[in-house]
């Protein structure tokens, strides 16, 4: 075994600590070119990742960057900085640690480039930005290790793809760079290892002892949860009681809106004034930092939070985690449970609080899955090419590059190992001229090839614009919220679409308080204090999660039981009620419910086919409904059902499932739908066709939406095989299943379609109305609604009555 340097060993001894076995192994294997550690949260994973660095620097301190630490969250970087300081200061090690995120000041960032610390903590986006500077080779010279924390979370998204491309860049600058990945428990470690290592090098996988079974239960309350709704207000007294019984409780929610509403109710019920805070990604940074600091100082008894606190942050004294709302996927649940009881080898304690009765079913299914250690995961395809386009532009910002070398570098990233030279050249051409069939921009190339064969920016000033648009996170466009008046306190952010729906005087919740909408000043939402007890408008959107397919399979199986001894009585009653007023889904048949709600006709198709298949089904059925003149307005899909709303009710579902008619004109319909346009918009931003930042002023989302739709329609008409259209199709198809699956379903079901006409929302359908990710359908419903509105306006204004022929027409004498 490799010995620790004396200073560190003394520090361990002074605390009476011993290294965990996996920490020792990490030290032993410190020289491995790529190493993946899988350990449960609370297993000293981060220290395991840093021990080799601390050890090397303690023995032979050299100036310059030694270790780069990358995490998916800014908050995590800040937290790690705090945690690393303890051993460094107490062991008296001459090591400088700094973080660099979107929140770091410009002065500090500049200094870091000139004089980098030994350990730099950052995010994938900040790292991509660093590699775009001309002085990147100097800054990263001598870099020995890169530690990617929570790599399982990054591996699921384009942020991970971008990070791995940046690592490929660093590896070229520092050939001896060693890569370390830290991951929570996952279903397929080899998959992540493949992403981490330089392709085709192997990557060693180290699995730590998973620790004891977590202590996890569903919270039992006297009041049963409601049929639908996401607030879990019914559970407030029981949750408050748990907060009282524990030292520190984290209360997780799936969306920011739910967190706000829950916090509000919790605060109203908190008669003894327990110190409780709120933390989520929409809040102003200052507010978030105050809550984090209070938490670390042990001043808070509970924090109501969302995913912004989700990943591996070590908050010390947390002894209970409460998950409000269904955990949606099992992996996320297990990782959240890890927040509690950060002492290794002590079981984590967690409580699930379902918000409605369908979620009770989901929670019970999730608990069974955790017990069976049945983690879910979905494989990702090859690396997306929009990220590649951005990477080429980033490379051009850093200085002239050789296309051959850049290609070689890119295919050393696992996700891009299969990239062909032709595909790469198409991306390069896109970056240079737009890659259009019509060669219109040759004189205005964005990047051009010099006589010596290297590629460079045509206009060096465009580097600024490219840097401002680095990143792959597609935030919904948000607006800042501020108190009205000079120097009004910033409160946080809301989605632009939400802001657009507000009229003066509307009240809503943000940062745990009720505010009154005063108006929009440029791109800032101005609000004032309001003393109302209840906000008029309760929601703004938040992060969207979907239930994993594995979990939904468990739920179908539960629906098919004769009775439900595993479920609380109120939920079993609820399923029985569904069976009574409607039906429960049965294998080999397709259950469809039709009922009016909210001034529209609703259709629910319970396919239990997984979100992708249900999404495809939604697109297909709305196409057929449009053809049948039923004026569909939109749909939303979950793993188990698709809800379609429109102006007219479906009376006979069979023609809708006519396979030949479903297939006819499918391509046209798919090409024109909102899912494609949304996907195009995201990819166009990443690939650099659309800019979010122009000279420091951000385009408002409305303008961006408008222009990206126009661009999409133009390309579809004049250049349907353009690279971005190919990328859009690939991306959208990741979220849709191919037609064969639908064909198979219609064949299997045949005419065993049960359409039930009901008068109101059914128990099983109720939760669908809360589902985010609604897809609007632009069709005849628009025109009919317009006519209604115009008629109403004309009647209201009296114009309809005065449409008599006007004055005599003046004749033009020529």
């Amino acid at each position, binding site marked *: 075994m490799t010995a620790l340097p004396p200073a560190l060993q003394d520090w361990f001894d002074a605390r009476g600590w011993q290294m965990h076995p996996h920490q020792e192994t990490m030290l032993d294997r410190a020289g491995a070119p790529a190493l993946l550690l899988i350990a449960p949260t609370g297993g000293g994973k981060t220290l395991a990742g840093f021990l080799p660095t601390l050890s090397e620097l303690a023995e032979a301190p050299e100036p310059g960057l030694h270790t780069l630490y990358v995490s998916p969250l800014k908050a995590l970087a800040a937290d790690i900085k705090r945690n690393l300081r303890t051993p460094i200061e107490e062991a008296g090690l001459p090591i400088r640690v700094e973080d660099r995120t979107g929140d770091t000041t410009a002065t500090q960032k500049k200094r870091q480039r000139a004089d980098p610390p030994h350990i730099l903590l950052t995010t994938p986006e900040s790292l991509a930005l660093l590699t775009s500077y001309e002085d990147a080779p100097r800054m990263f010279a001598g870099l020995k290790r890169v530690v990617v924390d929570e790599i399982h979370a990054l591996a699921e998204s384009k942020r991970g793809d971008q990070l791995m491309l940046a690592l490929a860049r660093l590896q070229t600058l520092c050939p001896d760079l060693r890569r370390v990945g830290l991951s929570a428990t996952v279903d397929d470690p080899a998959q992540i290892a493949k992403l981490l290592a330089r392709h085709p090098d192997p990557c060693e996988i180290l699995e730590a002892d998973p620790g004891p079974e977590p202590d996890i239960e569903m919270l039992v309350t006297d009041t049963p949860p409601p049929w639908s709704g996401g607030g879990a207000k019914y559970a407030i007294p029981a949750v408050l009681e748990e907060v009282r019984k524990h030292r520190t409780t984290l209360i997780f929610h799936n969306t920011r809106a739910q967190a706000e509403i829950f916090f509000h109710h919790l605060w109203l019920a908190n008669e003894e004034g327990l110190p409780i805070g709120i933390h989520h990604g929409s809040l102003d940074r200052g507010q978030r930092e105050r809550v984090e600091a209070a938490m670390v100082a042990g001043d808070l008894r509970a924090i109501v939070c969302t995913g912004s606190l989700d990943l591996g942050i070590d908050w010390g004294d947390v002894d209970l985690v409460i998950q409000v709302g269904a955990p949606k996927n099992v992996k996320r649940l297990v990782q959240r449970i890890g927040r509690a009881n950060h002492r290794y080898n002590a079981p984590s304690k967690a409580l699930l609080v379902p918000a409605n009765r369908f979620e009770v079913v989901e929670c019970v299914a999730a608990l069974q899955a955790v017990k069976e250690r049945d983690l879910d995961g979905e494989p990702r395809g090859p690396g997306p090419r929009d990220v590649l386009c951005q990477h080429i532009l980033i490379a051009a910002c850093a200085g002239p590059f050789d296309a051959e070398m850049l290609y070689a570098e890119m295919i050393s990233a696992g996700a891009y190992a299969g990239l062909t030279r032709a595909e790469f050249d198409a991306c390069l051409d896109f970056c240079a001229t737009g890659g259009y069939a019509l060669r219109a921009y040759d004189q205005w190339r964005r990047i051009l090839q010099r006589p010596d064969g290297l590629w460079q920016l045509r206009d060096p000033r465009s580097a600024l614009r490219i840097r401002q648009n680095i990143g792959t996170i597609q935030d919904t466009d948000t607006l800042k919220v501020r108190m009205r008046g000079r120097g009004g306190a910033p409160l946080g952010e809301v989605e632009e679409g939400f802001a657009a729906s507000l009229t003066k005087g509307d009240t809503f919740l943000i940062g745990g308080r009720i505010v009154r909408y005063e108006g929009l000043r440029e791109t800032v939402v101005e609000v004032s204090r309001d003393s109302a007890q209840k906000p008029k408008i309760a929601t703004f959107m938040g992060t969207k999660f979907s239930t994993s397919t594995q979990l939904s399979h468990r739920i179908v199986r539960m629906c098919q039981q004769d009775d439900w001894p595993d479920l609380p009585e109120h939920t079993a009653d609820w399923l029985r009620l569904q069976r009574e007023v409607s039906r429960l889904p049965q294998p080999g048949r397709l259950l469809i419910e039709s009922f009016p709600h909210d001034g529209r006709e609703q259709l629910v198709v319970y396919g239990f086919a997984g979100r992708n298949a249900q999404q495809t089904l939604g697109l297909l059925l709305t196409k057929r409904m449009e053809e049948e003149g039923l004026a569909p307005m939109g749909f939303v899909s979950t793993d188990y059902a698709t809800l379609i709303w429109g102006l007219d009710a479906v009376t006979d579902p069979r023609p809708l499932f006519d396979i030949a008619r479903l297939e006819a004109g499918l391509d046209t319909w798919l090409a024109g739908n909102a899912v494609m346009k949304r996907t195009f918009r995201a990819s166009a931003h990443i690939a650099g066709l659309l800019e979010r930042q122009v000279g420091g002023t951000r385009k408002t989302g409305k303008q961006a939406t408008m222009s990206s739709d126009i661009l999409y329609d133009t390309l579809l008409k004049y250049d349907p095989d353009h690279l971005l259209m190919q990328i859009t199709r690939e991306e959208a198809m990741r979220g849709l299943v191919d037609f064969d699956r639908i064909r198979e379903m219609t064949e299997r079901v045949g005419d065993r379609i049960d359409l039930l006409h009901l008068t109101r929302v059914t128990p099983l359908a109720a939760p669908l109305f809360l589902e985010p990710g609604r897809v609007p359908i632009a069709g005849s419903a628009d025109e009919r609604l317009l*006519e209604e*509105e115009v008629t109403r306006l004309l009647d209201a204004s009296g114009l309809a009555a005065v449409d008599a022929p006007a004055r005599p027409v003046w004749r033009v004498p020529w």
Partner: protein
Amino acid sequence: MARGLSPLAPPRAVGKKQSMNRLAFDFHGAALAPLPSGALHWPAARTLVVSDLHLGKSARMSAGGGAALPPYDTRETLARLERDIAATAPARVICLGDSFDSGAIRAALPAEDRDRITDVQAGREWIWIEGNHDPGPADLGGTHRAELMLGPLTFRHIARADAAGEVSGHYHPKARLLLRGRAISRPCFLFDTVRLILPAYGAYTGGLFTHAPTLSRLMGAEAEAILCGATQMRLPMPRTEARRA
């Protein structure tokens, strides 16, 4: 009220031919027909009016060092114009300004696009009104004017306070309506007793919502809007004051 259809909003299933003139209205004694594309037809004067074509917009943005937008906007706009000219066979076409996205881009227009412009100009009077994006005479066929008076109407790019029978463009007006929780926005014509503002005709043109203070101040209280698109609609101009909760 039943889904009654007022005389101003006829049933949606009207034939194309019929829909051309169904929203014709009288403006200072001229009988004008707004087309679904955003062009204005004055049959009695055999005149077609279009505003804010912004030809060459994508090329101008690309020249500025930004991303290269799909370079199909100019041909798309010209295709629209060709269609409207074929349908109305005007003796005179008035382009109400900002026909080109910039003077420089006008000069750099590809030969193919210039040829198409020359083709549609053949056999008719063609008037380029000066806009803020394209001041100065064009090196293309047609007459160049700062403004033009024709019978009871005055054609200029930007509306003036002392307007009377004025037809202008510039603002790219766009109406936004909230319909049972769904927002629909469409380019639109705006008119009151003294002025008429045309929507932008170009493919890559954004718009200014009629709720914007600039447009609300400019247009009289009785102003109306006519929406472009498959189903043309005439309605009171949507304004901030009229906005419902």
